[in-house]
């Protein structure tokens, strides 16, 4: 391990020792952060995987339903039927801080229609098929999960990034910075000791010469 380019003086030694202490403290803190991030991440990513599996399965099913609906009706009348949606859907997005990772919190807000008398569907029943009803119903049910998936997956992506960054920092401190500092401190101590010994020998020699 290469040592830092410094003058072997007592002042440098004090400075280096201070830096070493800071580095070690930083390393410990970052390591703790990494551990906690990892724990949260594993929790979340397991959820992410499960959610994605269910969403993919349910969505595929919904698409199949929809395909059947399309097959039964002419595409013009189908498009006409769903042209004007009855529900308005919006998202409320907040942020949550998980171990310094800003992650989104997404809520689905449905603006329900005012009067409950009208049907759940944005079209009349005369020109549409019942397959379309069920297709839209199943899509509606998947949507909640899809929004949840979006929130979890985005958080996972952001956390993965943060974990990678933190790991780099921890490793840089652990394997480069701290060994380097230790080595340099050792080098300076040795050099200073050596100087000390040299000085003492010289003094002894001088005393011997004076004594003669």
């Amino acid at each position, binding site marked *: 391990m290469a040592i830092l380019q410094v003058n072997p003086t007592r002042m440098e030694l004090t400075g280096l020792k201070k830096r070493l202490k800071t580095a070690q403290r930083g390393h410990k803190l970052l390591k703790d952060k990494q551990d906690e991030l*990892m724990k949260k*991440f*594993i929790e979340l*990513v*397991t959820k*992410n*995987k499960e959610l*994605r*599996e269910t*969403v*993919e399965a349910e*969505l*595929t099913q*919904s*698409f*199949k339903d*929809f*395909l059947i609906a*399309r097959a039964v009706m002419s595409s013009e009348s*189908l*498009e006409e*039927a*769903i*042209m004007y*949606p*009855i*529900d*308005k*859907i*919006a*998202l*409320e*997005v*907040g*942020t949550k801080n998980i171990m310094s990772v*800003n*992650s*989104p919190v*997404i809520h689905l807000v449905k603006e329900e229609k005012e009067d409950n008398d009208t049907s759940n569907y*944005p079209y009349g029943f005369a020109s549409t098929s019942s397959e379309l009803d069920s*297709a*839209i119903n199943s*899509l*509606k049910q998947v*949507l909640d999960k*899809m*929004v949840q*998936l*979006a*929130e979890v*997956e*985005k958080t*996972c*992506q*952001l*956390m*993965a*990034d943060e*974990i*990678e960054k933190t790991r780099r920092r921890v490793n840089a401190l652990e394997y480069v910075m701290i060994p380097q500092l230790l080595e340099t401190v050792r080098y300076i101590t040795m050099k200073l000791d050596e100087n000390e010994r040299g000085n003492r020998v010289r003094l002894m020699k001088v005393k011997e010469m004076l004594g003669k």
Partner: protein
Amino acid sequence: MYMYKIGVIGDKDSILGFKALGISVFPTTDTKQASKILIDLAKEKYAIIFITEQIAKDIKDYIDVYKQSLMPAIILIPNNQGTLGIGMNAVRQSVEKAIGADILFGKEGR
């Protein structure tokens, strides 16, 4: 609080149903057009953009741009021909990136 929107990009046959739910639908099959739509949506107040895997696989570079920003969340969904496994792969990749080894999917033997 400002209300954000949901957008869906994909081939028309797959995503038209979302329109009935009140979600903005952008049917396209053209790669160039899809990337343009994506960029436009990201600039506007869209918090979640769902893209079918069939389209996403061709505009991966554009999607990756938004991977590290808080919004929008770009989520891949299967289309009506079933899943290509790209979305799942992305989850696996983020596990590998964070942990260094694939611990979630490995035991299932893929």
